[in-house]
C-alpha cells in the first residue's frame, strides 16, 4: 500500500523535472541563438529561414573582439561603474530604508511616495534637464556622471524598506531594551537578517548598470570611457553592422553576471530561519 503513493510521487517528480528541463531549454533559446550567431560569419547571422548550425564555425570572433576592438577598456569601464553604483546604492539605500520602515516621524509617508513617484517618470523625459545640470558642473563625458546618476535611485530604498517591514518589530524592540541605538539595530540586527534582499538589490543594480545603454550614450563620448553596451553598439556602423561580433560581445558580457548569480545562490535563499534568529 505504501509503495503506490511513493511511486506516484516519484513519477510526478520525474514529470516535473521533464517539464522544467523543457522550459529551461525554451528559456535559454535566445541565449543559445546568441552563442550560435557569435560563431557565424557576419552575413550568415540574419537569414530566412534561420540557420541553426554555423558553417564554417568562426572561432575567430572570440579573438577579434579582444584584438580588433577595445573590449578590455569597455569591460574595465563597465566594471568600475557597476561596482561603484552597486556599492553606493546598496549602502545608502539600505540605510535610508531603515528610516522609512522602522522610524515614525511626520511627513514620512509623503516623502516615501515622492520617492516612488520618481520611479514613475520615464527617464527619457527628464534626461535633458539632468544632463544640462551635470554638464554645468563639468561632469559630462566622465564616469562620475553615470555613477551619480544611478547611485541614488529610489529603487533600492523601496526594495529594502519593504523587506525590513517583514522583519518582526519584536526583534528590534528586544534590542532597544538591551540598549542598542537605532544605528546599532540597523547594523547588527536588521542588516544580517536582510541578506536575501541585499543580494537581490546587489545583483539587480549590478545588472542594470552593466546593461545600461541610454545613460552612457548621452554622457560618454571619448572612446576611453565607453562601456560594453556602447562599444557593442559601435559595431553597427552607418552602412554596415558587425552582427556576429555584437553577439560575441553580448555572450561575453552575459557570462560574468550569470556566474555571479550562480555563485551567489545561497545568499538569495538565506532566510531568517537559516541565520538562526527566531522571531
Amino acid at each position: 500500500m505504501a509503495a503506490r503513493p511513493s511511486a506516484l510521487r516519484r513519477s510526478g517528480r520525474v514529470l516535473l523535472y521533464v517539464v522544467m528541463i523543457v522550459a529551461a531549454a525554451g528559456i535559454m533559446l535566445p541565449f543559445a541563438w546568441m552563442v550560435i550567431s557569435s560563431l557565424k560569419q557576419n552575413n550568415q547571422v540574419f537569414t530566412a529561414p534561420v540557420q541553426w548550425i554555423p558553417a564554417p564555425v568562426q572561432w575567430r570572433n572570440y579573438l577579434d573582439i579582444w584584438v580588433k576592438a577595445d573590449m578590455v577598456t569597455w569591460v574595465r569601464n563597465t566594471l568600475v561603474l557597476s561596482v561603484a553604483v552597486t556599492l553606493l546604492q546598496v549602502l545608502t539605500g539600505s540605510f535610508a530604508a531603515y528610516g522609512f520602515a522602522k522610524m515614525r516621524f511626520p511627513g514620512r509617508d509623503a516623502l516615501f511616495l515622492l520617492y516612488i513617484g520618481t520611479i514613475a517618470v520615464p527617464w527619457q523625459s527628464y534626461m535633458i534637464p539632468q544632463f544640462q545640470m551635470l554638464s554645468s558642473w563639468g561632469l559630462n563625458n566622465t564616469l562620475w556622471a553615470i555613477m551619480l546618476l544611478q547611485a541614488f535611485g529610489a529603487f533600492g530604498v523601496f526594495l529594502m524598506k519593504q523587506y525590513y517591514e517583514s522583519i518582526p518589530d519584536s526583534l528590534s524592540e528586544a534590542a532597544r531594551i538591551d540598549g542598542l541605538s537605532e544605528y546599532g539595530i540597523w547594523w547588527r540586527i536588521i542588516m544580517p537578517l536582510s541578506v536575501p534582499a541585499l543580494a537581490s538589490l546587489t545583483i539587480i543594480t549590478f545588472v542594470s548598470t552593466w546593461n545600461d545603454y541610454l545613460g552612457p550614450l548621452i554622457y560618454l563620448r571619448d572612446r576611453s570611457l565607453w562601456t560594453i553596451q556602447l562599444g557593442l553598439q559601435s559595431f553597427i556602423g552607418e552602412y554596415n553592422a558587425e552582427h556576429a561580433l555584437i553577439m560575441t560581445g553580448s555572450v561575453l558580457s552575459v557570462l560574468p553576471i550569470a556566474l555571479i548569480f550562480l555563485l551567489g545562490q545561497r545568499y538569495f535563499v538565506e532566510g531568517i530561519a537559516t541565520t538562526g534568529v527566531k522571531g
Partner: protein
Amino acid sequence: MNRKIMSAVGVAAAAALTLTGCGGESEPAAADGPVTLTLAGWDFASTPEFQTLADAYHEANPDVTVELKEYPAGDDYDTALTADLAAGAAPDVFIVKNLKNYVTFTEGGTLLDISDVAAELDPATGGLEPMAIDGVTYAVPYRQDSWLLYYNKELFEKAGVDLPDGSWTWDDYAEAAEQLTEGIGEKQVTGTYLHSWQSTVQGFALAQSEGASLDGGDFSFLAPYYERVLAMQDAGAQPSYATVTTNELTYQAQFGTQKSAMLPMGSWYIGTLVAEQESGAADTFEWGIAPIPQLDESTTGTESTPVTFGDPTTMGINAGIDEAKIETAKDFLTFAAGPDGAAALAGIGITPALIDDAVADAIFGLEGVPQDDLSRFAYATHETLPENPVGQKTAAIQTILGEAHSAIMSESTPVDEALAEAEERVANEVG
C-alpha cells in the same frame, strides 16, 4: 606642494573655460596663429570621411587643426548631439545628419547663418539650394547619396533575363523581378530585395510623382507605388515585409550573398559592396548599377535624366562657437563642400554633393567598381530630390507616414484606408 600646483592648474583651466564659454562677449580676435576647430562626426572606425576632410584641410591650411569628436552612428547621433547642444557642450562644427531636424536646429538658434559660404559654392552642388530658409542658409551639403538599382549580372544570365538598359519603368522592374525569381528557380533566392525602410517606397513616389508633396495633405500619390510593391511581395518576387522585419534581414547579406538579383539602394552601397567582396564577406560575382526605375517613360532612357531621391548630408557651424574661430570655420565649410573636399571624399569612395567628372573618374577608378557605361551613367546622371524636404512639419509627417508604411507593408491595413488615415492624422495632429 603637489596640491598647490594642482589647484593652480585648476584655476587656470577654469579661467580658460570661462573665456571660451563667454566667447560671444569677448573681442573678436583675428585668427592668426594656430587654430583648432572641433568637428562632430560618428563612428570613425568605419566612417573615414571626417578624418579625410580634416586631414585634407589641415594639409591646405597647416595653421588649422580640425579635431574630431566622436558620436555614435545611426539615430543615436542625433540623440547624443541634441543633448550636447542643449547643454552647450557641442563642437564648433557639426553634421546635420537628418535633414528633417534641420529646421528645428535653426529655430532653436543652434546654427550660425552661413549664407556667405553658400554663395561661394558651386550652384550645382546637390541639395544646396533647398537649404535656404527665407533666403538664409544655415548648413551646406558636403555629400549626397542618390538611390540607384544594383543588379547581379550572373543571376540575370542564369535566369535568362535581359540586363537593365536604363529604359525601365517600375512596371518593367516588377516584371523582371518575377521572371528572375522564376528563372533562377532556387528556394530563398528572389528577383529583388526591398528593405523595410519607408523611403524604399515613399522616397521614390515623392520624387517621381507629378505634384507630390509631403505637406499638401494628399497622399494618394503613394498608392500606385504601394500596390505594385504589395503585388510583388505576394508573387514572391521579393521577401515579404513580414520576413524582412521578423528575420531582421540585411540588404548587404541579401544582395552580397546572392539571395536577390536586384537591389534598389543608395550610392553609399558601392563602397560597402566593393569592400565586402574584397574581404570575402560578400560572394564574388559580377554586378552593375542602373538608373532607378521611373514612374513612366518620360524620364527613362540614357537621353533623359532619371529622377531619384536622396538626402544631402550637411554641415553647419555651432552658434555657440568662439567668435575668433568663425572665419576659420566658414573657410573649412567652403573647403569641405567645394571641389577640394569633393575630390578628397571621392578618393575614399564616398559620393560628394558636388559630382563632376573628376569625382566620377575617382569613384570608377577604384578597384572592384563595375566599368560598364550604364553604371557610370547611372552614377553621374540623375535629378535627386530630397526624401525629407526642408520644412517645419517634415519630421512629424514622416512619423505618421512611417506608421502608415508598416501598416500597409505588413498587410494589416489596405492601402487606401491607411493613406486616408494618414491624411486625417496629418490634418489632426500636425495642422
